[in-house]
C-alpha cells in the first residue's frame, strides 16, 4: 500500500505467507503420500510406488466417476453462474418489487441443512421424472450452487460503479453489449471466484448426490460410502492428479500471457 511503513508491510507479508503456508501444507503432505507403497495413509511413505495411480487408472469406476464429476461440475457451475449472475444483476438495486423475497429464496439452499435439501430435491426431481438422470443431477447441483453465485456476484455488481453502465446506456449500447463489454470485464475476478466456488461445490458434493444420482457415480460418491470410507491412498492420487492438472493449466495461461505481452511490447518498441 502507498506509503505504509516498512513495519506494517513486513507484518502483512508475514501474515500473508503464513496464510498461504497454512492453505498449502496439507497438499505438501498429500502429494508424496500418493506415491506411497503402503496401504494406509502414512507419512513419510515407507516406500515409493505408483500402485495408487494404477489403482485409479486401472479401475473403470474411478475413471467413469471422474468423467461424470468433471462434466457435471462444468455444466452445473456454468448454469449456476449464468442464472445466479443474471439474478444478481436483476437484484442489484432491489428496485424490483419482491426482490428481497426472491433473493432470500435463492439463498435458501445454502441455509437449509444439506440433508434436508437432499430429501427435498429427491421429491422435487421425482415429481419431474428426473430422478437418477444426468439432467436431474445438473439441475440439483445448479440449485445448490446458485446461492454462492448470487452472493459473490451480487456484492461485486453492487460495488461496480453504475455510472459506467449508464454511460454505455446513454451511448446507445444494448444491454447485452453493456454486460459483455462494460460489466463483465470489470467483474472478471469476482466471476472467476464465483465460478470456481460453484465448480468445486459441485465437484465435492456428496450428500445430495448420494440421494438423487441413481446409478451415476461421482468422485466423492466413490470415496464416501455407507459402510466403508475407502481411505486408501487412491484418493491422494486423485488429488495429486487434480493439483498437477491445475498447475499445468495455470502455467499455460501464464506463458500465453507472457508471450502476448512480449508481442505487445515489441510492437510498441517498433
Amino acid at each position: 500500500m502507498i506509503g505504509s511503513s516498512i513495519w506494517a508491510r513486513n507484518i502483512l507479508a508475514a501474515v500473508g505467507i503464513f496464510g498461504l503456508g497454512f492453505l498449502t501444507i496439507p497438499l505438501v503432505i498429500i502429494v508424496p503420500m500418493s506415491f506411497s507403497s503402503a496401504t494406509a495413509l502414512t507419512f513419510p511413505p515407507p516406500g515409493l510406488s505408483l500402485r495408487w495411480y494404477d489403482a485409479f487408472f486401472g479401475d473403470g469406476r474411478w475413471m467413469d466417476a471422474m468423467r461424470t464429476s468433471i462434466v457435471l461440475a462444468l455444466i452445473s457451475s456454468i448454469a449456476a453462474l449464468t442464472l445466479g449472475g443474471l439474478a444478481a444483476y436483476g437484484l442489484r438495486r432491489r428496485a424490483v418489487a419482491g426482490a428481497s423475497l426472491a433473493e432470500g429464496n435463492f439463498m435458501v439452499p445454502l441455509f437449509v441443512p444439506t440433508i434436508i435439501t437432499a430429501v427435498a430435491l429427491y421429491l422435487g426431481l421425482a415429481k419431474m421424472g428426473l430422478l437418477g438422470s444426468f439432467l436431474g443431477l445438473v439441475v440439483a447441483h445448479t440449485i445448490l450452487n446458485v446461492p454462492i453465485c448470487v452472493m459473490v456476484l451480487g456484492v461485486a455488481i453492487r460495488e461496480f460503479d453504475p455510472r459506467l453502465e449508464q454511460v454505455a446506456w446513454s451511448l446507445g449500447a444494448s444491454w447485452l453489449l453493456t454486460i459483455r463489454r462494460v460489466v463483465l470485464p470489470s467483474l472478471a475476478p469476482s466471476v472467476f471466484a464465483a465460478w470456481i466456488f460453484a465448480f468445486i461445490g459441485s465437484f465435492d458434493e456428496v450428500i445430495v448426490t448420494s440421494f438423487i444420482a441413481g446409478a451415476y457415480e461421482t468422485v466423492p460418491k466413490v470415496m464416501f460410502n455407507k459402510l466403508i470410507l475407502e481411505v486408501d491412498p487412491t484418493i491422494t492420487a486423485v488429488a495429486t492428479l487434480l493439483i498437477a492438472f491445475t498447475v499445468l493449466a495455470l502455467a499455460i495461461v501464464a506463458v500465453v500471457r507472457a508471450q502476448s505481452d512480449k508481442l505487445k511490447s515489441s510492437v510498441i518498441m517498433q
Partner: protein
Amino acid sequence: MLAGSRSDSLKDSSLGVSPSTVHQAVASPSCGEGALLVTRSSGYHFIVPGFGFLIPLLLLMVVVFDAPIVYMLALAFWDKAQGFTLGYYGDVFEAPVYLRVLANTVRISVVATIVSVIIGYPLAHWIRGLGRRAKMVALALVVLPFWVSVLVRTYAWIVLLGNDGLVNRALQWLGLVQAPVSFLYNELGVTIGMTNVLLPLLVLPLYAAMARVDDRLLQAAASLGAPPSTIFWKVYFPLTLPSLAAGTLLALILCLGFYITPAILGGGRVPMISNVLDTLINVYPNWGQASAISTILLVVTLLIFAIYRRIDQTTSTK
C-alpha cells in the same frame, strides 16, 4: 442513490477529494462529467428489465426446490396419527439438547469464521500488493486446495498434527516443547480444519473486491496528505467492506453445515447439528423432528442474512 456510493462516502471522509477527481479515477478517462449528468437525469430503473433477469432462476427454484422444501418443513406440523401437531417443536424446546447442539454449532462456526477473517483479509490485501508474477503464484496457491477433497485434507491434518505427527516431531526436535501438543481431537483441531476449508472462500471474493479498488483513488488521497492509516481505514477498507461482509456471512453459514471435518478432527467432542440431523433422517427416521430443527436453523440463518442485508444496504446507499 443514483450518484453511487463512492463520491458520497469520500465526501464524508473529510479528505476533501472533490467528486470530479473520483469520477475520473473510477470511470474510464473517456467518459466525462457531461455524460454522467445526462444519464443521471434519465430514468435509470425503467431502462433495465430487472425482473426479467430473475425469472429463469425463479422458475427453476419454485418448481424443483421450493415446493418440496415447504413440504419437508411442514412435516414438523404433521403427525400421521394425530394430524396437526406442535409436538415436534415442543420436543425441541422441552428437552433443550438439540438447541444446545445448535448453539454449540453456532459458537464453533463463529470462532472458525473469525479466525478465517483474521488470516484472510491481510492475505488478500498482501496478494493485491504483489508483483504480477508473484500474484499469479499466490492466487494459484489459494485455489489449489479446492481440488483436494475435504475428506483428504482432513486426513492430511491427522498426519500433520497428530501426537506423532510432523509438526509435533518438529517442535520436539527443536526443543520447543517437551510433550506433544494436542492439536487434534478438540476444538483447536476443528478450528484448524474448518479454517483451512473456509479461507479460500473468503480470500478470493475479497481479493476480487480489493483488485477493483483503483490505485489512483489511493494516490489521490495520498497526494492530498492523508496518512497511510487514514487512507486504509477511510478509503480502502470501506470499499472492501461489502465483500468482507458477504464473505464472512458465507463462511459462517457454510460452517453451520459442516459435518465430516468437525466429526473427525474434533474427536467426537464437538457435536454439530448436521450430524444430529443426519441421524434423524437416516438412522431413526424421525423426519418431523428433523424438520422442526431445520426450520429453526433456517429462521436463524435468514435472520442473520436479513441483518447482513440491512447493514449492506445502509453502507452501500449512504
